[in-house]
């Protein structure tokens, strides 16, 4: 197990380094950020001075090593647009994204799992068919379009909810969150529903598949023969048995929810990390792009690593094979 762990860790580090080079070179190729930053009327002197200040006159490999050295010291550079350290910038935006993701994941679970259970329990009923049709919609219709429809319906036509922004931020136990105020909730609910739909579709399908399979197993037949009420069979026996794959997939999907937040945050003008990366791409804010991308790579490599290690722990074949 230890040998496997060391090998996998080395691989993960290698992947992060390889990706950091790719990201750095890729972002470098996008264009000269100086052209975007200063107004075209600025003199050559100001231009040259700025280029020197940001170290853009040095060869690429040198810039990369300067970047690596800075990262080692916890310095991811300074945003060229906001003029504050990228670390501070990302961490100031992170709470908004985390809160959005948490609310949407909760909605997906609270609605998706019971809906999936029902659809698997009575697969031929009209209700089950409607639920499955909705899950196909949640899966296939682009997120941004549903978000726009929500805004049109609930913000523009009905005027019930605000169309964007984060709203008032309150303080609970030292954490600043918009979930502490009623105004904050009115702002978070629509984007959270929007973000939850894809996950909800996935959950419904997973739960339904597990339920259908479980219904034909021997333990359910025996429980029935014992005369247990269906409610007890479903919630006490089946749910417990099918919850492991659901939780696994759901945990894996948490990472991709962060990615989808990019779209939802743009539609609802939600001041999170996703909005930040879109803005930085549009404004050629290189340090923010590079740092965000490398953070995402690290996040996904970590998720992968954790999953592999758990599997290796559970299944000896994986670790004996070497998993190279």
């Amino acid at each position, binding site marked *: 197990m230890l040998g496997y762990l060391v090998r996998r860790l080395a691989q993960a580090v290698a992947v992060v380094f390889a990706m950091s080079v790719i990201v750095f070179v890729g972002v470098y190729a996008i264009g000269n950020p100086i052209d975007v930053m200063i107004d075209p009327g600025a003199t050559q002197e100001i231009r040259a001075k700025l280029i020197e200040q940001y170290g853009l006159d040095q060869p690429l490999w040198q810039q990369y090593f300067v970047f690596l050295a800075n990262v080692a010291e916890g310095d991811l550079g300074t945003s060229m647009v906001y003029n504050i350290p990228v670390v501070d910038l990302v961490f100031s935006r992170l709470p908004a994204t985390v809160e959005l993701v948490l609310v949407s994941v909760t909605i997906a679970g609270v609605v998706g799992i019971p809906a999936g259970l029902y659809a698997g329990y009575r697969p031929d009923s009209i209700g089950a068919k409607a639920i499955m049709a909705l899950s196909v919609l949640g899966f296939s219709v682009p997120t941004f*379009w549903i978000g726009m429809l929500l805004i049109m319906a609930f913000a523009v036509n009905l005027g019930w909810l605000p169309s964007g922004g984060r709203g008032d931020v309150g303080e609970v136990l030292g954490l600043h969150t918009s979930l502490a105020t009623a105004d904050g909730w009115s702002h978070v609910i629509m984007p959270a529903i929007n973000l939850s739909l894809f996950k909800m579709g996935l959950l419904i399908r997973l739960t339904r598949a597990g339920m259908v399979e479980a219904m034909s197993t021997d333990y359910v037949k025996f429980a029935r023969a014992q005369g247990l009420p269906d409610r007890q069979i479903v919630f006490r026996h089946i749910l417990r048995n099918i919850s492991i794959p659901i939780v696994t997939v759901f945990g894996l999907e948490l990472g991709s929810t962060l990615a989808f937040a990019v779209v939802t945050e743009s539609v609802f003008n939600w001041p999170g990390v996703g909005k930040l990366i879109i803005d930085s791409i549009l404004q050629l804010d290189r340090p923010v792009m590079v740092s965000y991308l490398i953070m995402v790579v690290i996040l996904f490599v970590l998720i992968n690593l954790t999953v592999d290690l758990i599997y290796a722990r559970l299944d000896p074949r994986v670790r004996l094979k070497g998993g190279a």
Partner: protein
Amino acid sequence: MSDTATTTGGTLAVPSAAPAETRATRLRNFWSDYRRSPVAVVSLAVIVVLLFVSFGAPLVSPQDPYDMAALDWMDAFLGPGTVGSGGYVHVLGTDNAGRDMLSAIFYGLRTSFVIGLSAGALALTIGICVGLTAAYFGGRIEALLMRIVDLQLSMPAILLALVLVAVLGQGIGQIVLALVVAQYAYFARTTHGAATVERGKDYIEAARSTPLPTRRVLFRHLLPNVMPPLIVVATVQVASAIALEATLSFLGVGLPLTEPSLGSMISNGFKYIHTDRYWLSIYPGIFLMITVVAINLVGDQVRTVLDPRRSR
């Protein structure tokens, strides 16, 4: 009686005639299974109609939305059903530049289809090559290729495409390239999975023992037998390529406004969301939704029909 014997067992006697006949029969069987779902048949019909109006856009649309000379700013923001200066009814209204929405949607749909289909075809080709190579050769090549594929699969396609488009710049070619890089991994994984199962079977072993070149064994013997799951993945991936392109264009990193796609039209209409000019964003969105959902429903039915576990 003797007729059936030649088609099933007589392949040795007439090797060239038998495959063609079974292929036609297989297609007929497929169709008779497929049409059992009315929803899937309707979806297929919808796709055919959409393909026709999009690729026939110059013929069926009332106006050429790219022709700046034909546009009149006096026609801007006409509501659905209004008669414009051109003397015909703008069924779905006009946009801020006085463009007929219906025509723009047909042309935009064409862009979406071109991008979705070419990205899907390229990703399929590359994915097959990667997957077959990995499954056939095994060992270190397999480990390396599949590790890259798995790593890519763990990253959401939208994020990968977003980064690539940011790096590559705007334009149809760039978008297709970004989508191919983001999507080939799905095909590679599916091919590899199916091919690993097939590899162990006797007919591949037999083919390998002959002096046939590796390429021929791979593409003529192995590939046809791993095709069914790939067809399903391909349908789903075309739909998701179209949706991804629309999303990227909506976020402002996809196609420039000079090459209108459904995504950039919706993005344009989004600016007017707080006015009562709903038609600028609603109609292109409805066409996008219908396209994507129809392709997915067809894919669902194809999956059901091709599922080997399904009892006949």
